[in-house]
């Protein structure tokens, strides 16, 4: 059994320690927002926050998660109480297929937590590990700027 904190609640998983966090999330833990894209840490679709840092979960063994804090998209916000990044993505319709948006939400939330007023280039840099194939990049960049502005107003 491996224990860690998932979206502020303690959880234990009965799985081999080499099992990836992604498999644990989508399997026994039943959280589906974290997505498989490549299995090689190259696209960012599977990003979670690990102790606050955006981290690809597809190759991350559970053994390395033990005792740590994991936040997934489900922990960022809900339709009723969305994270500012989620609210802005919807407001600006910043997505097409939406498959890449889970990892992008995670990377953006981590960026804005440490810098709520990033320059465009800093946002792009924070998304260096995230791929989008539909070409929604500019809308996503605008939405993250808008989310930062909303967070600054609320602060």
């Amino acid at each position, binding site marked *: 059994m491996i224990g860690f904190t998932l979206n502020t609640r303690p959880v234990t998983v009965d*799985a*081999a320690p080499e*099992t*990836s966090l992604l*498999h644990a999330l*989508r*399997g026994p833990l039943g*959280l*589906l*927002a974290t*997505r*498989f*894209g*490549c*299995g*090689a840490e*190259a*696209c960012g*679709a599977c990003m979670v926050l690990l102790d606050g840092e955006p981290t690809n979960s597809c190759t991350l063994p559970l053994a390395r998660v033990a005792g740590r804090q994991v936040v*997934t*998209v*489900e922990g960022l*916000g*809900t*339709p009723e109480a*969305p994270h500012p990044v*989620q609210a802005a*993505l*919807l407001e600006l*319709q910043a*997505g*097409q*297929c*939406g*498959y*890449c*948006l*889970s990892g992008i*939400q995670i990377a953006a939330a981590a960026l804005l937590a440490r810098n709520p007023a990033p320059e465009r*280039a800093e*946002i*792009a*840099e924070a*998304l*260096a590990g*995230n*791929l*989008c*194939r*539909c*070409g*929604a*990049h*500019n*809308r*996503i*960049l605008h939405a993250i700027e808008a989310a930062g502005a909303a967070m600054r107003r609320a602060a």
Partner: protein
Amino acid sequence: MTVPVLPQSLRDNPRPAQWIGFVPGKRVRLATGKVELGQGVLTALAQIAAEELAVDPARIDVVSGETGVTPEEGFTAGSQSIEASGGAIRLVAAELRARFLAAAALRLNCAPAALDIDDGTVLQDGAATALDYWSLAGAVDFEAPATGTVPPRAPGQFRYIGRPLPRRDLPGKLFGGGFIHDLRPEPLRHARSLHRPWPGAALGPLDEAAIARAAGGAVRLIRLGDFAAVLAETEALADRALEAAEARARWSGGTPRPAVPSEPLALLGAEHAERVLEVPAGRADAAASVGRVGARYLRACLAHASIGPSVALARWEDGRLEVLTHSQGVGMLRLALAQALGIAAEAVSVQHRPGAGCYGHNGADDVALDAALVAREAPGHWVRVQWTRAQEMSVVPFGSPMVVDLAAEVDAAGRPVSWEMTVTSGTHGQRPGHNGRTNLLAAEALPGATPTPPAPDVPDAAGFGGLRNAIALYDLPAQRITHHLVARPRMRTSSMRGLGAHGNVFALEGFIDELALRAGEDPLAYRLSLLSDPRGRRVLETVAAMSGWAGRPRGGEGVGWGIAFSRYKNRAAYVALVAEIAVEQAIALRRVWCAVDAGLVINPDGAANQVEGGVIQAASWTVGEEVRVGPEGVETAGWEHYPILRFAEVPEVAVRFVGDATDPPLGLGEVALGPTAAAIGNALADALGVRVREMPLSRERIAAVLLG
């Protein structure tokens, strides 16, 4: 009396009951054969129905892509959903509304003209009555075929059309779930499949026990000829089993392919079918030739490269097969699955569920057969198959490489007096059922399978495949266009966003630019001097104004501007596009301006999103993407070998719609691909003073041209 020409979708599915129903809870059921691919089409179709029925779009539930349930509308492809399905829904909804008003007039003993409908409730002289769609539904005929004779609402009356409406599917996808990947019907088993790395390869023996030992759990190996799959209780175990099976798989025989320096050039000289298209002259004044200009343009082989891998779920029970898929055509997939499995189509039901972004004929259909084959070996279970990243970028159909040769004789004024074009390409159409074959990957590996014969290309009536947008819309002398359809390209090729238009518009608009420069004229002015189509002129003039074309920087110095024009398929939306780039060793994309005439635009924000996305995807194809094939199979089967444009590399994109709302809607999902490629190519030539005619316009190609 003239009989209206109904959209094909309505001719094929004429009964209103096939499209629209009113269900308890004051909900409206809208059925369409078109499917959500990430392009927002279901939102726009609901918007059309809401407009014509006069109901709030939030009342509408859309059922999409289910065999035996939704209208059969072929593939969701070719930028046709709004024209075909939207056109049908618009006419059906308008006619149903008229039938309801007639029924209400009978009840209320008044003239229909005294009645109106507001959010489904009948109004009499502007006041609400007790009647609504739901109470009146029993009195209205949903079976009598729609005639298309009730005029839809005019632009001045629109409540919903022409306004931005948020995507109905986006919240579900943003907060988790929402994709076919997330379905977990019970009892569920997970499978992974093994596919041949090259055509005709034979799979050596595989040991189930050894695979299970290596994977560390209970694994079933399924072997059907040269197709294999592993089946397990969890995804994690199925992944480990696949890894073990792939490590042990020995492939031999067949036709492995040596690496070549250029995939497009490798098409030349290969066995092909030739046809010639003669396009009559668009200008009468034939002046004397003073010289001949010719150029060869190349397009690389391209991958769909969706962020999410292909997935399907299948259940086999009592001789019946149920399939969940993100295919673009559930009806054609159903027939192909039945053919591949040797069962009756009636025994197969196929339902669409949203996948990751779909840009054409990807692995969705293939993985559905994988799931069906495994499900047949494990009756009663739902079998979920997910492809690996490597499979997603190697065993799928690709966009064909292309060689486009252009030649023209020009007069003293620099205008063409003869025009020849030769397009050499693999097929752009090899979807399930296209040539009477299933065209499903695993089907060719099954015992007793016969090799697939060469596929024909997409029919002319569907907008051409390799020749898509090969006919120039300029006022040219007679165009002689030759198509070499290569019988057996070095990779599987089929429909990918824009089909031949990406290569052809890159070539045509590059060549027009070369002629303009040769004549010493501004590329915009030269184009306008050869273009009498008023809608074409308007998009060009608009994009010139948007971008400040006349005041653009001149003289290279590492910055370049390029312009391009096309009308997708020569019958969908008009696009003119300006690109600004900077070049040091590689291209840095700065800004793109795009003017589009798509006639009536249903959802302007959704439409802009499609065009913006098309620009960025095409920019990625154009500057950096290239599938390479070698003796071990596809060599670019991962993001490290097939990079796509990143957040720090995308240009800013401005899109403006200039169409007239009284013109019918024109498809726009694929319109930006060709012009984007051409504008970037022209901008590169502007920046360098020499032209790179081979995509991708990579650092290496730029260096090669600069070094001469």
